[in-house]
């Protein structure tokens, strides 16, 4: 049934895109709505900026993950030494 669900969401996505394109087609023709189109463009620029910040956050979290793994190795070494002492 998941295949059928995937198929339905695939078809629905296409229908949704067509609906949006129809909306945008009207905007493109109505001079008064042109400003809306520009606003959407500007909003998308801002959203892209945020996605760039999100990408930087991923890199920082990745570095932090690696530091944690390094720390994990050190602490396991300490544990083994204490085990050996005991």
């Amino acid at each position, binding site marked *: 049934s998941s295949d059928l669900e995937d198929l339905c969401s695939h078809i629905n996505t*296409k229908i949704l895109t067509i609906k949006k394109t129809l909306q*945008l*087609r009207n*905007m493109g023709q109505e001079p008064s709505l042109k400003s809306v*189109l520009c606003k959407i463009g500007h909003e998308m620029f801002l959203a892209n900026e945020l996605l760039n910040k999100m990408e930087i956050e991923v890199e920082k*979290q990745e570095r932090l993950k690696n530091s944690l793994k390094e720390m994990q190795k050190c602490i396991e070494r300490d544990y083994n030494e*204490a085990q050996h002492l005991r």
Partner: protein
Amino acid sequence: NKLLFQFQKAESDLDYIQHKLEFEIMKNLPDNPSAEENPVILLKELSVMKSRYRMLCAQLKEISIEQRESISCIHATLENTMKMVQALQQHADLELSPLSEEEQTAAQQL
């Protein structure tokens, strides 16, 4: 097979409508529209942004799971090591060095 054919037919009809719409939009646009004035470009960019957002969310989620695994492993191993060291100190009749204030704070934090 009949059902499959119907789905394929529906998909190709939808693709045809989409391309026809996009062609109409491009035809009605002024010459050399800027990207912000071109609805088709905006729509394509929007879906690119959404898939990029989904990918970044998936990456953050995966990294967060690995970080939490490391944190809980570090926590448990440190606790066991500290217990073992204290047992060794007692066993060797070494004076148990009291935790410094900084160590106290760190231990409470953990």
